[in-house]
Every structure is written in C-alpha cells, then in structure tokens.
C-alpha cells in the first residue's frame, strides 16, 4: 500500500505541546486520532499535510464521565467505547445506537466520535444524534477554549467552524433524563455502509420532539419546522403524515452512486415516520429495543 506523500509525524504528550505544533505548522498540520478517515485520505492522495500530529497520547482527552450535570465524552473516545459504556446506555442510548451503525468493529475500535464530527462528511453518523441530543463541541486553541453548540458546528461538506490552530478536546451533552429516541440509517444492505439518509429523533415526556437529518443536505441539520408541527401533540397517523409532508421542504438530497434523490426523499419520510414511532414507543416503555432493525 502506498501513501505517496511524505510528511512529518509528531506525538506531543501535552495539550500545550500539541497546540504549539499547530501554531508553528499552520494549515499544513493534521490531527490524528483514530485515523480511519485521515489515513484513507492520505492513501487516496486526497490530502497533503506537512505534519501529522498524533493526539492519542494527550492526557485529559479520554473517557466518558458526568461533569457539571452533563455527559462528557473525550476526543479520544472511540465508537466501541461509546457502545460499551454503561453511562451512555443509561443516559444517551440513541448515541450508542448510532455508534453501532458506524462501519465495523475494527473501524469502531479506532474511530472516535470527535473525529467523525471533525471529518464532517454530510453522512456522518455522529451528526444527527449530536444535534438531537443538543450537544456542544469544546475546542482548545491559542486563545483558550471555546464551546460550539452542535447546530453551529457544521458549515459545509467536510467543513466545520474549527480553526487550524484548534483541537477539539471533548463533547458535552445535557443529560436528557426520561426520553425516547431513535437513530435510523439508510444503507444499501445490512453490512457496513455510509448513510444515504440519517434520521435522529428525540421525544421527551414534555411533548418536545427533536428531529435531525443527515446525508440529505450539505450538513447534518435540525428540522425546526417539523419539530414545531409535532410539538406537544400525540403522534397519531395524521400528525405523523403532517410531519412527513414537511420533509421535502427541509431536505436537499442529491443523486449519487449510492442512492437517487427520489429514493432519499421517499426514505426520509418513511424513516421519519418509523423513527418517531420508535422514539415515542421507547419513551412509553413499550418500544423496540435500541438497536432493533426497523428498516
């Protein structure tokens, strides 16, 4: 296997040292955590960094914990760790559900949630859950730390608000308490695939619904129009049909080798319907188990 491009590699042992490297090397630096995106891009000759900065040995970026009433997920936390976390299972089950749909175990053992958010491909599986769970991305930079709400994080395909000198250190999410949620992913078969449509729904006891889409626009996004339509209402067939009718107005799917825009549009409606029903069922306590095959 051949990565033609030559680059340096550094392995800082502190956040300060890492930020220093970024400051010195500028936009030619790439952060390397799991590497399942970056190394593939290097091999495809799609990226030509000057230096790769391995952040896996930075302290403080690991672990899942509760801090200040929020779930804190370190930048180095892998999808496997999320799936195996009792804390996530208890508080953010839909995040584990979504994590389980990412690639395969050998990828999930390396790929990080934060890496997925930073790669920011429109179909990223971490995007819709982070939006519907109203998470926040925390980054450290030369001027200190900043927090970016999920809704402001993505700016375009493979683009986020992150600046070249910054490192995402962790993600935090409010503890939802009692809720039902569902992440559905359209793929071409049951094996690993990139989402052709992603839908993440959260339903709360207070009648609040949070609906996010992935892979049907340049970025993952919330759908406030649909949320407003659903808010406070019992989700009978008519209400859900009304929500489905709003879908085409909020999504902008493309046709590519994976799926046509027509199918994506159709499936966005079907998946919204099924995700809403599952979320509501789970809130009620009689819904399908998280991870059940609903498509």
């Amino acid at each position, binding site marked *: 296997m051949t990565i033609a491009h030559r680059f340096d590699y550094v392995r800082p042992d502190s956040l300060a040292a890492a930020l220093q490297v970024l400051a010195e090397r500028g936009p030619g630096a790439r952060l390397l955590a799991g590497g399942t995106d970056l190394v593939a891009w290097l091999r495809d000759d799609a990226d030509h960094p000057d230096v790769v900065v391995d952040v896996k040995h930075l302290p403080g970026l690991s672990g899942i914990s509760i801090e200040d009433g929020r779930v804190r997920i370190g930048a180095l936390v892998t999808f496997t760790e999320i799936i195996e976390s009792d804390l996530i299972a208890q508080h953010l089950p839909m995040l584990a559900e979504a994590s389980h749909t990412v690639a395969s175990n050998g990828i999930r053992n390396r790929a990080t949630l934060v890496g997925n958010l930073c790669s920011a491909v429109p179909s990223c599986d971490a995007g819709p859950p982070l939006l519907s769970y109203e998470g926040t991305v925390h980054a450290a930079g030369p001027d200190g730390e900043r927090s970016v709400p999920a809704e402001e994080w993505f700016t375009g395909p493979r683009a986020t608000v992150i600046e070249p000198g910054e490192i995402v250190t962790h993600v935090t999410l409010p503890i939802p308490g009692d809720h039902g949620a569902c992440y559905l992913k359209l793929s071409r078969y049951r*094996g690993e695939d990139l989402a052709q449509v992603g839908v993440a729904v959260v339903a709360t006891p207070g009648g609040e619904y949070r609906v996010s889409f992935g892979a049907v626009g340049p970025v993952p996004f919330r759908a406030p129009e649909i949320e407003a339509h659903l808010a406070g209402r019992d989700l009978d067939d008519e209400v859900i049909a009304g929500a489905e009718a709003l879908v085409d107005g909020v999504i902008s799917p493309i046709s590519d*080798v994976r799926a046509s825009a027509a199918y994506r549009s159709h499936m966005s409606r079907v998946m919204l319907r099924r995700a809403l029903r599952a979320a509501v069922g789970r809130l009620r306590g009689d819904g399908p188990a998280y991870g059940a095959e609903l498509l």
Partner: protein
Amino acid sequence: MTTGRTYPGRADEVNAMTELTYVGKDVSRIDGLDKVSGAAVYVDDIDFGPALLHAEVVESPYGHAIITGIDTSAAEAVPGVVKVVTGRDFPFTFGMYMQDRYVFAVDRVRFVGEQVAAVIADDPRTAKAAAKLVAVDYEVLTPMLDPMDAVADDAEPIHPGLGDYPHVPWFFPKAGTNISHWRKTRRGDIEQGFAEADVVLEDTYRVPRYAHCAIEPHVVVAKLDHADRLTLWTASQSPYAQRHVFAQALAPLGLTHQNIRVITPSVGGGFGGKAGVSMEIIGAAVATAVKGRPVKVRFTREQEFYNTYQRQGVVARLKVGATRDGRITAIEHTMHWDAGAYVEYGANVVNAAGLSATGPYRTPNLKIDSLCVYTNLPPGGPYRGFGYSEFMFGVESHMTRLAQELGIDPVEFRRINAIAEGDPLPYGEPMNPSGLQEAIDRTAEAIDWGVEETSDDPTKRIGKGLALFWKAPAMPPNASSASFLKFNEDGSINITVSGMELGQGYATVMAQFAAEVLSVPPHKIRVENPDTDRNPYEWQTVASHVTWSCGNAVAAAALEAREKIFKVVHDAHGYEEGSLYLEDEKVKCDTDPEFELELKDFVVAGIETEDGTYRGGPIVGSGTFMPEFASARSDPETGQGGHPNVHYTVGAAGVILEVDVETGKMRVKKAALAVDAGKAINPRLVEGQITGGLLQGLATVLYEDMRFDENGRLLNPTFTDYKIPTSKDVPDEIVPIIVETPQPDGPFGARGVGEHTMIAAAPVVADAVADAVGVRITSMPVTAEKVALALLEHDDER
C-alpha cells in the same frame, strides 16, 4: 449414455467401485490447516529480496482516444526509476480466443484505465510518483458505452483492424463493425413455432456489468534471468493458459514455452477473474525490460475493479411462445453483449450463451443470436456462470411470466418443459442424464411452493420464486488435464496437477480420488500447486470442469500406480495381480488372507526378494484426460453439426422473500438450491459452493451496482461503494440439496457445480418480488430503491 459413444479416461473402472471409503464423504479440506494458521502463501507474500523492482501503470483517463504522443523523459529522470516502457516497446497483440489486445495501448486507448505505459522503479512510492510525470497527449474521441449504439449502422468501429485479428475457428467476427463475434443457433422453424403458440410473450431484459471482487487482488512478479528464462509468479486460475499467452505475445522477443515458467501459489479467490491473462501481461513485458531483476505489479483494489475482467453486460430480447396446455413451441433470444474494449476472452462467453440461451427447456423451434459488441468500457471476460448468470435472469423471469399469462403454475410449467436426457440440445446433440425433475420437486418442497405466506407486519409482503439453471463447461474441444502421482517413504503421496485450488476444494477432491483408489487417507495426500516446469498440463481451472476432467486424470494416475503396485507384488511374491487389492494402506490378497504388505515399506524402496535382489522401485503414476467427442465445428448460420459442450449440470433454486413495501428492502428468509452433482465427491464442499454461490448470486441482484459516467469511467471502484455481502447479509436459512444422477464419463459419476450455484439467484428474486408485490422488474440489479420507486409508481397508477 444414449449416443453409444465411448468415452476416454478410466471413469468406468472407478465407477465400478461400490464400497467407498473417501469418495462421497465430508472429508475435511486438506489445506484447511494452511489457511487457518496463516501458513498459506499467496503471491504477494513471497519475498524476492532487495533487488525487487516495482512497476506502476500509467493509465488512460479517456474511454476512447488516439494517442498522439508520449513523453517519458520527466519520469525517467526521477532518481530510483530504472526504466519506463510504453506500447512502442511491445507492439504485440495477445488473447485467449482472439488476439485483439495490446500489452500497452499502441495507437489508441479504448477504455478508461487502459494501460498506456509503465514506470519501473526501485520502490513503489517512486514508481507511483514518477508515473504521474509521464505525459501522454490524446486526441479525444466519443466513447461508445451502450452496445445498442455500437451496433448502429453509422457506429464507428472501435477496432478497425477486426478483420485481421487471429481467432479460434468457431468465432465469426464482422469486419468493419463492432460485432466481434456472432453466434447463431437455429433449429426448427421459428415463425411456425410462434404461429402454433396460443400465447407469445416478448420483452427485453437488461443486465449490467459486475465485478468478481476476489478478496486477493491480481498480482504478478516476473523475472527474466540471465539465461533468458522468464519466470512468473501469478495469482491465476490458469498457469498453463498464461504461459501459452505469454509465449504467443512475447514470441517476437524470442520467448517460447520452454523458456517461460509460471508458478501459482495459493490464490485468494478467482471466480473467473483470474482466468486467462489480464494484468499479468504487464508483468511479463516489463520483466523483459529489466533483465536479471524481478519486477512486481500489484493492482490496487481500484485497478482490480476497472482493469481486470468484468462480467459483461447484456441487453436481451426474449420472445417465447407456448400452447394453452403449457408446452413451449418457440424460443427466440437475441442478446447484445456489452463486451468491452477487448473481447479476447469475453467473446467466448458470448459464444457459450449463444449455444445455450434457451435455458434448460425442450423446444422444437429456437433462434438464438448472441452478438459480442465492442464498447469503450473495461474488457469483459469470464465470471462465474460464464454468460449463463447473465442470460438466465431474462429466461427465468420470462418463463414465470409466460406461465402466469397462461394461467399455469410456474413450477408446473417448468416441469412440463424441462429438458430431459436424450432431448435435443439447441445445437442438436442429445442432453446428458440429469436430475432436473428431482431438483425441481425437492426445491419446490423446500420452500413450500404453492403455500402462500403472509407477514404479521403490515409493511411486509412475502413472495416465492423458483427458477431453473443449467450450464455446460465452455471449453475448446481439446481441453485436457494431466496428473502425475508419486509415493513417499512414509506412504504419503504427492499429486502434481495444474488445476488450481481457488478455494472451491479442488485439491481435497483430487486427494479423495487418489485416496479411494490407493486406500491412502486424503490427509496423507498432498496436491501441489501448479508450476509449469514441474506439474503436467491443465487447460484452466474454469468452467466447473476440473472435478470431471482433472478428476479423471488423477483417477487414471492412481489406477496406473495401483497397477504398478500389484505388478511389483506379483513379481516379488508371485500372487496373481487380479487377486490383489488395497485396503488401509496395505496390499492384501483375496486368495491368501494372511498376506498383507504395507505400502510404505516398498513404494520407494522396492521389495527385497529371497536372494537379496529387489523388485520395483519408486511407484509413480500418470494419467491424462481429454474428451474425444467434442467438436467446435458447426454451421456458422445454425450452430448445428458440432458437439461443443461436453455435458450440462442442472438444478433449481427457490426463495422465500420478504419485501418491505415502504422501503423496498428485501430479506431472503429461505433459499433452497438443488444441484445435480452427478456424484458429490465431498458433500460438504458442494454445500460450500451452494452457500457461497447463492450469496454471490443474491448480491448481484440485490445490491451490487456498477456505475459509469458518460466518459466510461467507473464511479465506484471500491468496496465503499460497490457492495459485496458481509456476514450480516446472509439469508436467514439456506437449504442445500444435492441431486445425484451420475455423469457416465465422470470419475465416480461426478460433474462440476462451482459456477452453477449462483446462476438462478437473480431471476428467482425478481420472480419472488413480482409474487410478493406485483411489480415486475426487468433490469438488474433489483435494488430496494428500484422496488420502492416502482411501488410508488404502481400506487400512483392505480
């Protein structure tokens, strides 16, 4: 056999053996340990030392263009680059059945990805970087991507020189056109046949291209040594065929068969894609440019997709007539094959289809036209099923629809029309013994045909389909096999053959043949990987023919060794040879129950006699097999008169399919597949072919989906976007069914099954979808998207 012909080989002798110890048993694979331990060595695992060079291919970005100039100077100047070669250095054509392909494109490129030059360097990175510096100038032409466009009257010929290409005598190219071969088969009076029909159904079916996706990519290491011998290590199904093609292509450089050696270690899957010669010609050629050093060409997965053989696409027009009581009166099948830029191998796929595209049915009147059409897409070639996987989608979809139009149960329709032993085949010869009716009955039973199933889930419908399949090996009439066999001092055996263990279990089955004849357990028998210097000839490991052909050769070699064993014992001890037999690795005697002699005591050392002299010596055996009844000579206009196919393997597949009417997603709840193996030498391995082949076939109909852009560039040359099955995509339940109607000239009655198990998967799913949701999809793949959108359209129309 009904024809009264005699058959070569010694099948009769082994077929007379009644109490079988190893044949017909689930012997565990003799190479299982190698594979599970990591010991198995594949081409890319072999170390060639620091002198190994690496060649990177420079590829055409255009589907069709004239090469107006190549400047290699910048690439040559890169430190570490040893040489850069282009088509000018090797202006030679090559090909299996037609010589229409160049080592490197010479005057024009004909598909995106075609090799134009190669950079040979000390390390892969340098080669890759330097390859980017080779400057090629093109005059871009409009690529033709649709065979229907390529056969239009005003279509420009992609191969203006077609009329001069050497080819096998059974091909009929039309010079000046893009029709590189046209196989016509006609029997009876087709118009009369349609006139007699009460119902005639006509439609067009479209099947696109597919990729083999063996997990091991193609790779070749080649070295021309200082004695002018060219040695190649290839991942190949066909070392001897490769040697022959190299000798043909490189003859102008003074290379002959004697000076070319092809070695094939373990191969990581073939499926037809590693037959013949595709990218290996690059290795052979570049080696001649750097005498004394080995050169490796290893394809990336992307190159594997677009510059090794692809399964050809086909546009198939079917017209079938039948009487009210369900008898087929006429079958007309016209196939325009998207055969790609070079058809040196693919034209034989077209030929094979042209001889058999009625499907396994009897019909008094038939007209088959199979046209091999050049297009500006990657070269088509052999793929598991060899044309039958491609055309049976249409045939089995069509037969079900015709039955439904007649108001006859589709399975009953097949029972009525299924071809039987002695019936005339499309080219006139009689059909061999086959258990097609048994296959139909057992498959129908396995899926409870006739019993409608419903789902509790309101979004799901359940449908059933049952489809037949058949296939004959598509081979030259003199395709042959040979085997050597020797004993070792511990009583173990080495068999040298040039059939290839691709994973199908070939080596184990060959061992079982020898084991049965010589009473040596299979796990004391080694079957050596091919080396054209040491192992005797095998035509190719394709066509599902090696169990039959090479099995006959191995059986013959074992019989010869057994004869020598009995002669030595006779010479040393006086027993009549006819009274001797082998059991538990010992020679025993009917007339003297006390006598027993362990093989290991004398199969190398000989037997010492009373006066201290010895009899015998190393026991070796040899055997060959070549059919002497096959002939490729037939009437070019009717296909009659020859005997191109040795025999057919038949079977049936059935499926219970659940369709989600909202998403279009399909789930195979149960798949049953019955194949007539003649004699399952190793039932577990036959089941392995059923499970593996079925899944590969299901993948072609459910989600494998090759897409090209308007320039002929493959858009999805990766597993990210060309999806092949994972462990999560297996059917809920598979019922393998082995039918055994012996093949009279097969060793122990065996015939091949390796390809057949995928052939019916595509139509059986299309039929089940139609049964479940009333939507008939006549193009592949039948994806969830297609089903969902078709259902929406269906609903809109109502």
